[in-house]
C-alpha cells in the first residue's frame, strides 16, 4: 500500500513508541526469536522425557514405533517441507512487494498445513481405533505393554502439541493472508510475514525431529 513511503518515519505502520522503522523491525524480529526460544524449552521438556524413557525402555520404544504407519509419517514430512518452501517464497514475495504471489503462496502454505492436519487426523483415528490411546482402554499385544503405553503417551503428547501449534500456525497465516490481500505488506513493512514465517519453520523443525524419533527408530528392524 503506502504512498511510496520514501521517508521511513512517515510509514503508517510505524508505531508511536518506536523511533523509526528499523528499530521497530529489529524489535519485532528479536521478539519472535525470543518467543521461539521459549517454544524450544516447551517442547524440550517432552524431548527430555522421550530421551529418558527411550534409554530405559528401548525394546518397548522399538515395538511402539513399529506400530506407527511409516507412510503417513513420511508423507506428512514431505508435506511440511513443501509448506516451508512456500512459506519461504511467501516471505520473499512480501519483501519484493509481489502482492498476488504473496497471497497465493500463503494460501498454498495453509493448504499444506491443512493437508498435514487431515493426514494426522486419519492417523490418530487409526490409533484410537486400535486402542493405542493411553488409559483404561489401552491395549497392545506383546511383552511390556505398560512401557509401550509410555511410548504412546509421549507420541500423543508430542504430536498433539505439535498439531496444536500447526493449528495456531494455520490460523495466524490466515490472518496475514487477509492483510496481505488488503495490501498491507511491501518492501517497507513486511516483518509480520517474516515472523509468521519463522514460527512456521519452527513448527516444521519440531516435526523434523519427531518424525525419526517416533517413526524411524524401528525401521531397520522391520527392513
Amino acid at each position, binding site marked *: 500500500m503506502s504512498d511510496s513511503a520514501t521517508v521511513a518515519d512517515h510509514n503508517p505502520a510505524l508505531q508511536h513508541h518506536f523511533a523509526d522503522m528499523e528499530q521497530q523491525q529489529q524489535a519485532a524480529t528479536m521478539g519472535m526469536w525470543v518467543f521461539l526460544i521459549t517454544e524450544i524449552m516447551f517442547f524440550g521438556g517432552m524431548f527430555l522425557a522421550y530421551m529418558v*524413557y527411550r534409554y530405559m525402555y528401548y525394546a518397548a520404544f522399538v515395538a511402539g514405533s513399529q506400530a506407527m504407519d511409516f507412510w503417513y509419517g513420511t508423507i506428512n514430512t514431505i508435506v511440511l517441507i513443501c509448506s516451508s518452501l512456500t512459506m519461504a517464497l511467501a516471505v520473499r514475495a512480501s519483501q519484493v512487494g509481489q502482492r498476488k504471489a504473496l497471497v497465493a503462496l500463503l494460501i498454498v502454505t495453509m493448504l499444506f498445513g491443512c493437508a498435514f492436519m487431515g493426514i494426522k487426523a486419519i492417523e490418530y483415528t487409526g490409533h484410537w481405533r486400535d486402542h493405542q490411546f493411553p488409559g483404561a482402554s489401552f491395549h497392545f499385544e506383546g511383552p511390556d505393554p505398560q512401557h509401550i503405553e509410555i511410548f504412546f503417551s509421549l507420541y500423543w503428547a508430542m504430536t498433539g502439541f505439535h498439531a496444536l501449534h500447526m493449528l495456531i500456525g494455520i490460523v495466524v497465516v490466515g490472518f496475514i493472508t487477509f492483510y496481505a490481500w488488503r495490501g498491507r505488506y511491501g518492501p517497507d513493512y513486511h516483518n509480520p510475514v517474516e515472523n509468521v514465517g519463522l514460527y512456521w519453520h519452527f513448527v516444521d523443525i519440531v516435526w523434523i525431529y519427531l518424525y525419526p524419533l517416533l517413526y524411524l527408530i524401528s525401521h531397520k528392524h522391520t527392513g
Partner: protein
Amino acid sequence: MAAIPLPGAEHENYLNKEYGIRSWLLTTDHKRIALLYLLSITFFFFIGGFFALLIRLELLTPAGDLVQADTYNKLFTMHGQVMVFFFLIPAVPAVLGNFLIPIMIGAKDLAFPRINLLSWYIFIIGGCFMLYTILTGGADTGWTFYTPLSTSFLDTHVVAAAVAIFIAGFSSILTGLNFIVTVHRMRAPGMTWSRLPLFVWANYATSIIQVLGTPVLAITLALVALERLFHFGIFDPQKGGDPLLFQHLFWFYSHPAVYIMILPGMGVVSEIVACFSRKRVFGYKFMALAVIAIAVFGFLVWAHHMFVAGISLYAALVFSLLSYLVAVPSAIKVFNWTATMYKGSISYTTPMLYAFGFIGLFTMGGLTGLFLAALGLDVHVTDTYFVIAHFHYIMVGGMVMAYIGGLHFWWPKISGRMYPESWGRLAALTIFIGFNLTFFPQFILGYLGMPRRYWQYSPEYQVLNVLSTAGSTILAVGYVLPMVYFLWSMRYGKVADENPWGAAGLEWMTASPPPTFNFDETPEVTWEAYNYGEAKEVPVER
C-alpha cells in the same frame, strides 16, 4: 478526551489524560498496565495472606482443632500457589518493572505495548482459574504438584490449579520477552549497557529466567493434566513412569523461579541504597555481572530440592557444589551494598529501612540456604520448618521487603503524591518485627524436628508456634498499614515534585506522575548511572 486538571497536578500525565474504565482496560500504556497489575496482585496477596493466617491459627495449638487435615492440606497448597504464582513472580517485574523500565532507559513504552496488555489479561484469566479452584474446594497437592500424588491419588481440583498456573505462566513469559527486547532495542541515545540502572539489569536477568524456565513448567503441568484427564503414563510408576522425572522438570523451573522472585528485589535495593547513601553503587560492573551470574547458576542447581528423593549420590554431590557457587554472586551483592553505604551520607527514610531489612533478612535466608545445600545437614532438616523459615526469609524477608520498599521509593513518581513518612517508618518497623517473630522461631522448630505440612504437632513445640502466630498477626498489621496510607496519600498526600529524593536516574528527570510518553522529548544520556556527587544535591530531610 479533555483532561480536567487535578488540584496540584496541573500538567497532563498518564493518570489524568483519560478517564473511565475503558481507558484503563484497553490501555497500552506501560504505566497504567503496571497499576492494573498492582491492583490484581494486591488482591491475590491478601487472599494468600488470608490462607497464611488460617495456617498460623491452626498451629496455635498442638491439636488439630480449627481445621481438619484435609482442609489444612488445601490451605497450605492454596497459600503457596497463590503467593508464588500470583503475587511473588509478577510482583516487582510486572508492577515496578513495567512502570519503570521504559522510563529508566528513556523509552516511550515497552517494545510491545499490546503484548504487555495481553499479558495482564492472560494473568487475569489464570487468576480466574485460581479463584475457581479456591471457591470450588481447592487443591491439596502442595504447591509442588508432586506425582504420583497429584496424578493418581487425589480427587481435588488439581487440573484447575494446574491450568491456572499454566496460563499465568504465559503472562510471565510475555512480560520477560517484552523486557528483553525493550532493554536491547529501546534504549535512548547514550544509554549504553554500562549506564543501565541496576534495577534494569536485575529485571533483564529475571526475564532471561522467565523466558527459559517458565515453558518447562508449562509443559510439565500440561503433562500432569494429561495424566489426570486421560491417564497418560509419563509420570506414573505403575506404568514404569518416573516421578523423579517430574521433580527434575518441576524444579528446573521452580528453583530458578526463586531467582525470579529475588533478583528484581535486588535491583530495587540497589537503587534505594545508592540514593539514600548519596553514592554511586560500589562495584557497578560486578553488581551487573552478579545478577547475570545468579541467573545462569540458578539453572544449574535445581536438584538440591531432591537430595532425599533418591537421586544418585554423585549427582547430589555435583548439585550441592553448584549450589554453593550461587552464594558467590549473592555475597558480592550484599558486600557491595554495604560498601556503598560505607562513608555514604545515609538518611533513614522508609525505603531505606526496607532496604536495610532486605539486606539483613536476605543474608539470613541465603546463609541458611547454604545449610540446606550441604548434603548431610539437608537430610536432617529437609521437609521441616527449617526449610519453611529459610525460603520465607528469602521470599518474604527479601522479595516482599524490596517490593514494598520500592513501592514507597517510587510512589511519588507513580501517584504524584508523597506517602506520610512517619507512618511509613512505623509500618516498616512493624513488618520487620512481625516478620522476624513469625519466621525466626521456625528455624528452631525445624532444627528440633517439626515437619512441615502437618496440621498438628507435639506439645513441646507449642511455645515457638505461639510466638510465630503472634508474629504473623503483627506482620498482617504491618501489611495493611501501607495499603491504607497509600490510598490516603493519593488524595491527601503532599504533592511530589519531579525528584523528591534528589535521586539520580532518568525516571526522576520527568514529571511526577510522568506524561503518557514518559518524556516530552527523548533524552540523550551523557552521564554514568548513579552520578551522585555530580548531580545537584537536594536535601531530603522529611
